[in-house]
């Protein structure tokens, strides 16, 4: 009958396995505990159904506690249980606090009509003016599609992406993330009128009842006409192939848009492979996917071009940056296929791998090549990169030596941050300004961050840009690899973005010197900064794309340490027209409650700023919206700090007492999450006011100093458990009337 106990245990274990690993999707812990509790109750009910069964069930427990023969097991459990309890107590005593939850309502109910530029728009319309026009004939369809595409590529692509999948250039910097139109859960579930409301009124127009928001979606009412909005809506549905929801089934069924003919759909598979390289098959792909940036004639002059930096490539010149062929020679077909599939990181050229099939890629490459007649005559000669040299300390040291000997630092900066000598006006072959790569950010390298990519770039040069080939221009051929190894060692291949910040407690004096050792020893939290593309004047090409934050606090004050890259230091006291500025943003009304609008708040919910301005120093300000910043002056400014600029990088410390007498200031609460956001302006590029690099709201907490609890509670728990065990076992033995008087 010992089996009863074992049976019970087996049932519990089997139940746990089924709940945790078999049932899909995985259930939350609360549900799991509920089911296990019910199972335990059921098991206990079963074993206690009659006294025999109960006795059989309980017998092993008694034996463990009281029987002399079971002493080894008693001892083992006696040690194991307190250890487990002690560990649990330790982990709970030092438990970290999770970030505060953010509740968000999705798809609030739209109003039936809205006012748009003084006109009343019926949102429950089934046949919008553009759609009515478009279904009439194919010419209108093409016209509205082209117009909608131009609106999209000039305004929406930065967040919602080239592939309409919410993966735009700036998407990673905003929270909530931009909508993915390809997902069947977004526009396919909505009516066109709903979309009109969202586009016209934007984030600020979201209903207050469903707050909190902080959506980065701009209100386009002031920038787009009614027709343009209907056109871009039409473009969204036509390009993603989704159909909008119609309010009333009795309305006319909208004709399904014919999908753009794909190469594969036109030909049988075998024919497709053979004829994929035919440039004519690439034309429809090019016109649907590429022309909006690269232009109908391949000159890099599509509607998107004027706002992009770097600009889309002009195919008619036949000059390509990312190649495997020698300098001055055209690229191989594989080079172009590679760039189309993998995209060019750090630019607006997306990776088309997941969107275009292999034969479509080859067809469009053939079409693109036709823009440059020189392809017919010349065939690129492959660059023979010397055999690979492994990356080790010696190689990197030699690479650093070569970096200085061939003077890479003259353009790329002493530390490789892309800061050339002041006054350099580097231009590409078309006369547009071009920035040398920041070698400490390999994830932005156009041809990829691998060492072999770097060695190839050095061998071929980047045609159309000032970057020359160094193939014959190094002391020894292997130096190309030493240089590649050195450059690759300057940064990680992917930035690791932080999600929230913890300000650790510090003892003693916190130095203001940004280069002090204590700052270098602290791990930094990287946060992305993206262009402010919501309010005019918009910043499509921000200089600063990342800020690294460190912070400590004492019982009296908090000290923030910020690091960001800027190739051109701009100080008005030294002649620059506009200053470089950085700001930390906090809500003015206190830490709790709904956060203000992340773009400097508004009249109802203003924000508080800790600022640093080149030439003026550290300051404080309050803001009730972009352009409505009121700096504090004189005695009211209690923030202090120091800033150094070195080889393309700013490092700043900004400190302030935790609480100040000034009512307008933000009071830093202890051990509670509060919101923080970041702003940066590159004065050298004319960034000021709304033209800025901005971050979304993040949460930060001043961590209380580690309490002694972690070292006091676990031993007490262990001791308590051990004593409990001893007591229990002794009682059990006495109950059994055991002959032995052994303590355990």
């Amino acid at each position, binding site marked *: 009958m010992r089996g009863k106990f074992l049976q019970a245990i087996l049932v519990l274990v089997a139940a746990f396995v089924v709940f945790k690993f078999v049932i899909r999707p995985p259930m939350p812990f609360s549900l799991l505990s509920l089911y296990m509790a019910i199972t335990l109750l059921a098991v206990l009910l079963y074993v206690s159904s009659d006294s025999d069964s109960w006795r059989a069930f309980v017998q092993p427990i008694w034996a463990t506690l009281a029987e002399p023969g079971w002493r080894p097991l008693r001892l083992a459990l006696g040690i194991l249980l307190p250890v487990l309890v002690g560990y649990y107590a330790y982990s709970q005593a030092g438990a970290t606090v999770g970030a505060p939850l953010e509740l968000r309502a999705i798809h609030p109910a739209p109003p039936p009509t809205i006012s748009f530029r003084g006109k009343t728009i019926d949102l429950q319309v089934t046949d919008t003016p553009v759609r009515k026009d478009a279904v009439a004939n194919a010419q209108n369809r093409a016209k509205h599609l082209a117009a909608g595409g131009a609106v999209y590529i000039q305004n929406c692509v930065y967040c919602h992406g080239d592939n309409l999948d919410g993966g735009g250039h700036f998407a990673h910097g905003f929270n909530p993330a931009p909508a993915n139109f390809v997902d069947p859960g977004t526009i396919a579930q909505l009516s066109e009128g709903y979309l009109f409301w969202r586009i016209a009124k934007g984030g600020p127009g979201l209903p207050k009842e469903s707050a909190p928001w902080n959506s980065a979606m701009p209100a386009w009412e002031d920038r787009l006409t009614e027709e343009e909005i209907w056109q871009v809506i039409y473009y969204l549905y036509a390009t993603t192939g989704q159909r909008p929801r119609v309010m009333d089934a009795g309305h006319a069924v909208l004709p399904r848009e014919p999908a753009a003919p794909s190469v594969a759909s036109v030909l049988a598979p075998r024919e497709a492979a053979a004829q994929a390289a035919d440039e004519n098959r690439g034309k429809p792909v090019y016109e649907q996917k590429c022309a909006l940036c690269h232009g109908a004639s391949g000159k890099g002059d599509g509607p998107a071009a004027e706002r992009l930096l770097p600009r889309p490539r002009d195919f008619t010149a036949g000059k390509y940056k990312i190649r495997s062929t020698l300098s001055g020679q055209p690229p191989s077909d594989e080079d172009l296929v590679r760039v189309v599939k993998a995209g060019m990181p750090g630019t607006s050229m997306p990776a088309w791998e997941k969107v275009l099939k292999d034969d479509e890629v080859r067809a469009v490459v053939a079409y693109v090549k036709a823009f440059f007649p020189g392809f017919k005559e010349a065939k690129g000669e492959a660059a023979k990169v010397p055999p690979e040299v492994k990356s080790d300390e010696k190689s990197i040291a030699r690479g650093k030596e070569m970096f200085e000997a*061939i*003077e890479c630092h003259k353009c790329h900066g002493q530390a490789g941050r892309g800061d050339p000598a002041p*006054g*350099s006006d580097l231009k590409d072959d078309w006369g547009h300004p071009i920035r040398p790569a920041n070698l400490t950010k390999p994830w932005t390298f156009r041809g990829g961050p691998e060492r072999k990519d770097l060695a190839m770039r050095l061998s071929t*040069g980047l045609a159309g840009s000032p970057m020359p080939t160094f193939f014959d*221009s190094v002391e020894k051929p292997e130096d190309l690899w030493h240089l590649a190894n050195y450059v690759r060692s300057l940064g990680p291949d992917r930035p690791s973005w932080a999600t929230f910040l913890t300000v650790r407690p510090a003892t003693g004096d916190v130095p203001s010197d940004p280069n002090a050792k204590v700052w270098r020893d602290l791990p930094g939290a990287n946060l992305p900064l993206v262009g402010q593309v919501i309010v005019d004047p918009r910043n499509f090409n921000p200089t600063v794309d990342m800020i690294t934050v460190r912070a400590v606090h004492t019982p009296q004050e908090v000290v923030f340490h910020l690091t960001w890259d800027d190739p051109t230091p701009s100080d008005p006291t030294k002649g620059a027209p506009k200053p470089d500025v950085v700001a930390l943003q906090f809500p003015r009304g206190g830490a709790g409650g709904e956060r203000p609008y992340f773009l400097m708040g508004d009249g109802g919910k203003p924000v508080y700023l800790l600022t640093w301005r080149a030439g003026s120093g550290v300051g404080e300000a309050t803001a009730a919206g972009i352009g409505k910043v009121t700096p504090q002056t004189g005695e009211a400014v209690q923030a202090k700090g120091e800033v150094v600029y070195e080889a393309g990088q700013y490092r700043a410390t900004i400190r302030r007492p935790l609480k100040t007498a000034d009512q307008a200031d933000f009071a830093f609460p202890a051990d509670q999450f509060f919101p923080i956001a970041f702003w940066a302006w590159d004065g050298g590029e004319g960034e000021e006011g709304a033209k800025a690099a901005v971050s979304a709201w993040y949460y930060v907490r001043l961590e209380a100093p580690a309490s002694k609890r972690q070292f006091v509670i676990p031993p007490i728990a262990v001791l308590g458990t051990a004593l409990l065990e001893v007591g229990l076992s002794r009682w059990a033995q006495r109950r059994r009337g055991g002959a032995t008087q052994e303590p355990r």
Partner: protein
Amino acid sequence: MHRSRIPATLVGGLAVAVALLGSSGPVEAQGGTIAGEVKFSGTAPAPKVVKVNKDVEVCGQEKKIAEVAVGAGGGLANAIVSVPGAKGAKPAGKAVLDQKGCEFRPPVLVMAPGDLEILNSDGVLHNIHTFSTANPAVNKAQPKFKKSMTEKFAKPEVIKVQCDAHSWMLGWLVVTEAPTAVTDDKGSFKLENVPAGKHKVEVLHPILGKQTKEVEVKAGQEAKVSFELKK
């Protein structure tokens, strides 16, 4: 193009007169010579002063860039005079382009299709970045230890050359088989070994444009032609 300011001591007119009257060079049975001058009418624009932002030990503190270089007497320097279509004699010697003092020397180089030797006499990083379309576009680095390199220009073309490391550096390569000459700082030129007959003579200046004139060349004689370019 870069030109250093010349002191206005030389009497340009006297030199021009000598050039016009005298005839130097061998007289060949088949060909003749065309000599003359190119003048700039109007006031010459002042040279731009560019502050040197790197390698000042080699480049100096500033550079005066005269895009339209006019000497005393109104002669236009660095203009390219050629007889397109005719076949001239190969220029003697190797084509050599030097980067010295952070300038291309000569600022305008005439060469026959073939190899060009490029020297870096400066000991700092320069790069040769050509904007050629008929010939492959070249962008090659020339660090200090690479004192000389050779590039091939096989097709006739007028090619702009620049150095990206030093943005004021600008040069021109005239790859041609036709008789071509570059005007000196007085604006005078001499085209030799021009086949006898009627020809179109063309002058080309990167900023001021082109002009063509008809001239008749007699064997063993020198034909005179002059041009006047204006903005």
